[in-house]
């Protein structure tokens, strides 16, 4: 069943069509890999799905609901979580506070109970903290919960980004190059995190990634973009073997001078 669907989706930057006429279907419970050469429109597509960018044309449907005109925070509340390509973290907060922020923010706080710090409020706060510590344990950061987020090394920051996104219990997780700049161990542990999440919680994941080996191991299905359009789709193995894909990445013989 389709969880997310884009219909004839397009986005222009001036005269450049970063994404055009894109029909993409993300099925519930799958890990879909989005691949393509630089400038193919992968990040633009993620920005369109999470609402950072508005679509120039076409529609985005999430769980049978047209979300094309929704601002990012409403999409987040519907269950779309995003991990940015850069290490986007709340810099003034500790590791735990980052995850708390990720989960707190769409819980509605009744101003009065916050003001008087009612028992109900304190109890709920404790629950949230326990849940966040569990999440940190899941990504392997629970021992560093009280450090400043920015003092973590790159790989751990990346894992924290994922934990922040997971704090909202997302239905659809958008990962923008989660493995960039990671060493072999970190890559393995990140792949493990994504897979475990998918297996145990059934989180549907849309992942943009350049590391082909990881895509082969991670994704059941992949879509190749080129010049903002869908080049091909299928299992990652089929896609990699497709002559059109090889041409998009490497060019044809005639291109070589």
């Amino acid at each position, binding site marked *: 069943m389709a969880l997310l669907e884009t219909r004839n989706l397009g986005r222009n930057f001036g005269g450049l069509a970063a994404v055009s006429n894109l029909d993409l279907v993300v099925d519930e419970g799958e890990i879909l890999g989005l691949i393509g050469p630089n400038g193919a429109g992968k990040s633009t597509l993620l920005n369109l799905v999470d609402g950072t960018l508005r679509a120039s044309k076409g529609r985005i449907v999430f769980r049978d609901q047209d979300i094309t005109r929704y601002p*990012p925070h409403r999409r*987040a509340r519907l269950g779309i979580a995003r991990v940015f390509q850069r290490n986007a973290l709340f810099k003034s907060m*500790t590791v735990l506070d980052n995850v708390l*922020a990720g989960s*707190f923010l769409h819980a509605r706080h009744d101003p009065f109970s916050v003001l008087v710090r009612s028992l109900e409020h304190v109890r709920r706060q404790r629950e949230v903290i326990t849940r966040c510590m569990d999440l940190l344990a899941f990504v392997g950061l629970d021992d560093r919960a009280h450090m400043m987020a920015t003092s973590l090394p790159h790989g751990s920051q990346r894992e924290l980004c994922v934990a922040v996104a997971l704090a909202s219990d997302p239905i659809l997780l958008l990962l923008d190059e989660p493995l960039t700049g990671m060493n072999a161990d970190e890559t393995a542990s990140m792949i493990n995190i994504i897979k475990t999440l998918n297996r145990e919680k059934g989180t549907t994941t849309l992942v943009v990634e350049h590391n082909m080996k990881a895509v082969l191991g991670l994704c059941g299905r992949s879509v190749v973009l080129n010049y903002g359009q869908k080049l091909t789709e299928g299992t990652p193995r089929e896609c990699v073997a497709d002559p059109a894909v090889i041409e998009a990445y490497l060019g044809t013989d005639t291109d070589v001078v």
Partner: protein
Amino acid sequence: MTRAGLARIPAKPIAIVALIAVVLLMPNILSGSTYWLTVLTLLAINVLLVSSLRSVTLINEISLGHVGFALVGAYAQGLLMLKGGLSFWSSLILSGLLAAFVAAVLGYPFLKVKGIYFSILTLLTAETFRLVAYYSDFTGGFTGLLGIPAPEPMNLFGRTVEFTTVNTYYYLAVGLVIVALLILYHFERAYVSFQWRAIRDDSMLAAAVGVNVIRFKMVNFIISAFMAGISGALFAAFQHNLSPDTTSRFGTLMSIYILVYMVVGGKSHFIGPFIGTTVLTLVAEFTRPIAEYQPMVTGAIAILVMLFMPMGLAGLPAQIRRWAGKQFATRPLPKQSGE
């Protein structure tokens, strides 16, 4: 929110209570010196204005237009009391609400832009308000608004207290400023702090985790404009006369001054505006014999603070602690980064 140093917290309320006690006993300490009480009353009003300015920095914006909201509050107070015949208290609240309303109308387009663009828009708004007050007959034109009455006498414990002199108005102003600061503090610390911090740190990520960024920015801007309006209203009822002149406290120069107060005090601390405003006001008072060089003195202090105390005067204890930690550490500091 989690806090590592729980043991340090009890010291704070004690310090605050002590500070409030000193502030309340000030007329006795100064044995009723009208001059110094006037200075202190204006200081309290300025502390509120600078604190409201600092409040906007919580969403990572610099407003250069808070004197504009102070002007709206001041003129509203004056006009409501003079022409509307309302009491001090009701016009005080209405002045704050009017400033907040103006911020609510302007906030949406203004907060859609960021950084220097936001600053420029607020600067121009303040200047526009001043020019409207300057050229409109309704607000008294360039002569300003004259003869704003003092708050009406209050009946306290069977004693009638008049607010016509600074000795009594001091208590009224300081009391209201303290209440206003407590409200600001509450907003910053408890109610919407996570949202504001999240927006300040990374507004894109904040939106991605479900914060309605523009709404919480609006909440911030409106509260801060309300407080600026209140400070203006307190000023109006204290000075009895308002001038829309460039050199008045509603001119651009004042916008810059309150910015300097904030930076010198340290904008990352709630107490910063209080410290910065107090220090620079006292410096201004003690350099009165060389009044023409006074802006230079203020400027020099601002530059020195920015160079050597990037966190402002309020950040000095933390800076000293860190320095001492480095100098006298007997064992290496715990590693900050991971393995």
